[in-house]
């Protein structure tokens, strides 16, 4: 009897004693993002995510293909969508034998999906995967109040007419006020915008700087569309061919006319407007990940390698840190693991939840005492060259359907890195509700 393993160790997955292998981005697809209650008003999360997956299938000829796993999620999700991603897979052109999973890490949902799938590929558990996310404000669930819920449950359980009448008689007008899914932080009761207004103010970020960042975002994304940069990243959906939040003619002068929308308690010092904050948005994205071998067998391109992903969270509840500042902590940890500095990066994608978020993040990395005391560094992490930052615009222009943003950014950056050439380095930073953040390091192929 032979004790030789059937597969030589070098060919075996890392889980079975072989070496870790790279997880690569083959390509991505998203639908154009739409401001809430506009183009996708009548569209469900399931329809949007299915369209994003199907666009990816069409782009890479994956009809009937059984992938290792599809992982996606939505921040605002109907109870009926408990198996959202699996339902989307079954409705897509992929093989119905493709397993699926839902995840949720607020605005970083897509990043979490992509990060964990990349790890599974590295370990050899799967060869191919789609990671992504979807969100719809237009299709967000509205719940009953607890009071109305109890009445309805009792009504359902009532056996006699008398019981039913008694149950219904407990219904009060206030019970029927619908409870929309909140955008507020449960522990502070403050909206994300109000939280960011505090952070923006604390870091002394000016209105001018925020408006400049917002205008640049619009101008850069518009230029990217015009140059065909988005051709391999976006598939039109329901009559929309571009993100409808995009204003190519945006300018600092126009943005300067808007009134503050957040941090009104700051009076004259309020700087955050609807123009330098992302609007509520509907949309979906999907990223195709695989091992190098899987891509090579199918003649598929390899755009970039997912080198590493880092999650972080901050204690924002009593204002020790800003709600959206977790990436400030995650990035130095991620870079340190690979012996890199900010200056080694060729492209930096910082999700523009608010212009203030990006600028406060940059300011924190440039602040020596903050970096020493809070990040435990020996000095300031350093500056990000603005020419490398969000080169094709970001969420201020495209919009931000919470769970879909990770896929949008990873897809875009992978293509950018591929065009920049083998070995180019890119960073993705996505902040999230609950004081969380996920950042990723990608290397161009």
């Amino acid at each position, binding site marked *: 009897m032979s004790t030789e393993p059937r597969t030589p160790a070098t060919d075996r997955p890392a889980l079975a004693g072989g070496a870790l292998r790279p997880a690569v981005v083959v390509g991505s697809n998203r639908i154009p993002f739409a401001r809430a209650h506009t183009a996708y008003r009548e569209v469900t999360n399931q329809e949007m995510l299915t369209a994003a997956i199907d666009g990816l299938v069409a782009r890479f000829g994956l009809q009937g293909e059984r992938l290792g796993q599809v992982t996606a999620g939505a921040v605002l999700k109907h109870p009926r969508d408990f198996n959202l991603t699996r339902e989307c897979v079954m409705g897509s052109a992929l093989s119905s034998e493709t397993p699926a999973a839902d995840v949720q890490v607020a605005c970083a949902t897509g990043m979490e999906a992509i990060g964990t799938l990349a790890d599974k590929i590295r370990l050899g558990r799967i060869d191919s995967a789609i990671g992504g996310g979807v969100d719809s404000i237009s299709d967000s669930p509205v719940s009953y109040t607890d009071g109305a819920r109890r009445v309805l449950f009792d009504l359902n359980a009532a056996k006699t007419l008398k019981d039913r009448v008694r149950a219904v008689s407990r219904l009060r007008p206030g019970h029927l006020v619908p409870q929309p899914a909140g955008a507020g932080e449960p522990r502070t009761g403050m909206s994300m915008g109000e939280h960011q207004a505090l952070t923006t103010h604390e870091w002394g970020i000016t209105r001018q700087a925020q408006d400049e960042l917002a205008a640049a975002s619009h101008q850069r994304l518009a230029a990217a569309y015009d140059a065909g940069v988005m051709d391999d990243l976006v598939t*039109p959906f329901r009559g929309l061919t571009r993100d409808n939040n995009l204003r190519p003619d945006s300018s600092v002068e126009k943005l300067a006319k808007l009134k503050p929308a957040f941090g009104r308690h700051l009076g004259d010092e309020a700087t955050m407007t609807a123009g330098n904050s992302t609007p509520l948005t509907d949309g979906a994205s999907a990223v195709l990940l695989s091992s190098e071998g899987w891509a090579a067998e199918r003649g598929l391109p390899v755009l970039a390698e997912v080198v590493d992903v880092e999650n972080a969270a901050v204690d924002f509840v009593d204002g020790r840190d800003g709600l959206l500042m977790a990436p400030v902590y995650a990035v130095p940890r991620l870079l340190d693991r690979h012996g890199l500095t900010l200056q080694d990066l060729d492209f930096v994608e910082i999700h523009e939840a608010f212009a203030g978020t990006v600028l406060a993040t940059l300011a924190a990395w440039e602040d020596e005492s903050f970096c020493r005391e809070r990040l435990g560094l020996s000095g300031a992490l350093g500056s990000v060259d603005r020419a490398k930052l969000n080169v094709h615009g970001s969420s201020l222009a495209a919009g931000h359907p919470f769970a879909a943003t990770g896929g949008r950014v990873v897809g875009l950056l992978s293509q950018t890195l591929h065009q920049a050439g083998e070995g180019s380095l890119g960073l993705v930073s996505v902040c999230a509700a609950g004081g969380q953040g996920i950042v990723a390091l990608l290397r161009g192929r």
Partner: protein
Amino acid sequence: MPSSDPYGDLVRSPLGRRLTGALGLPRPAQLRRLEAGTPEFAGDVLVLGEGPGAEQARALVSAVGARPVGDAPAEGGLTGVVACFDAVTHPGELSATALALGGALRSLGASAHVVTVVRDPEQAEDAAEQAARAGVIGLTRSLAHEMRRGGTANALLLRDGAALSDAGPAGALAFLLSPRSAFVSGQPLPVGPGTPAPSSPEGESEAPLAGRVAVVTGAARGIGAAILRTLARDGATVIGVDLPAAGEDLMRLVNELGGTALALDITAPDAGRRLLEHARARHGRLDVVVHNAGITKDRMLANMDAARWDAVLAVNTASQLAINEVLLAEDARDTVARDLRIVGLASISGIAGNRGQTNYAASKAGVMGLTAATAPVLAARGGGITAVAPGFIETEMTARIPLLTRELGRRLSSLQQGGRPEDVAEAVAFLASPGASGVNGTTLRVCGQAMMGA
């Protein structure tokens, strides 16, 4: 499929038949087209004429699965006639076969296909021979006008010493006898000997494009979508190309058919390179290119502006030239098949001209020009380049034509109706297939023998 031709539907109803009969209005027949699940060839095909052509025709008719007969059956029901004039050297020799053909017409079933076989007059030895051969074309064109119940008549012109039994003519004959050519009528089709297709043991006629990779531009909608469907049905792995803005329709179609979608503006400077890269990376080869993408920007020439003119020429003609150049270049050999077949979409506007379409007609005549000019390059490598000139086709685009003009466009043809996108697609699929190896440099009209430019 919802009908876009209410008049056609009306006349095919019992009441409508009486009404239109009484009023002497045209009565377009329901054309028999190739449908899944029904045999492509069936029934009796009458073979007329003397000489080698007739003998070979009988064998070919048998080979495709129909029954060759020598006499018109009294009960009728003929599905086709092959009238062989391939040996004529003088106009005086036409009468016997011509009159026999005439005698058989009453025995034709619905949507029957008449094919006359003659040697190409352009390659005649002397005046009498050329007159005889040209006469057959004239006879065929007139017969096409006389055909009833959706029947067609076309002339197969043997070129370069081809025998009817050679691969090229055999493939063309099969197409012209098939319901695939339902909307092709009154056309002479010059065919050379061609090259036998690499033998595939099973189902060659079922899947003539099996194992081949075909790209179609403008594939998201209308005729392009029908072409993509038909090529996929014929076994090709398809690459659908369309503008980024058409991506959603293209995605659905490609996912239904299998294959890949490529968002591409074909007028972009790197369009050919991107197309080649896509085929190389995703499929490793490219056998068929269908230049279908096209636009109209109609204006009387007096009112024409540069933007309208240039856009139409850029999309409809220049893009084909540029992409062909990339695909035919030496460094594309690793991907592009030697026997590459290119099919460009022309238009009868490019033949007959059309009011308000100077730019469009220029672009489409240009396609025919480039097709003829590029033919030797492809002939040298065993491939072919052809064009298809559709007549009035029922599409979203023609549905926007004003009602009366649209009605005129439909009825001013021997078949008295508009064609369907599938009719164009069938012609393209034939020209893209190994069966069309004898056809090169030619533009085939798919117009129901429209009066325009005939």
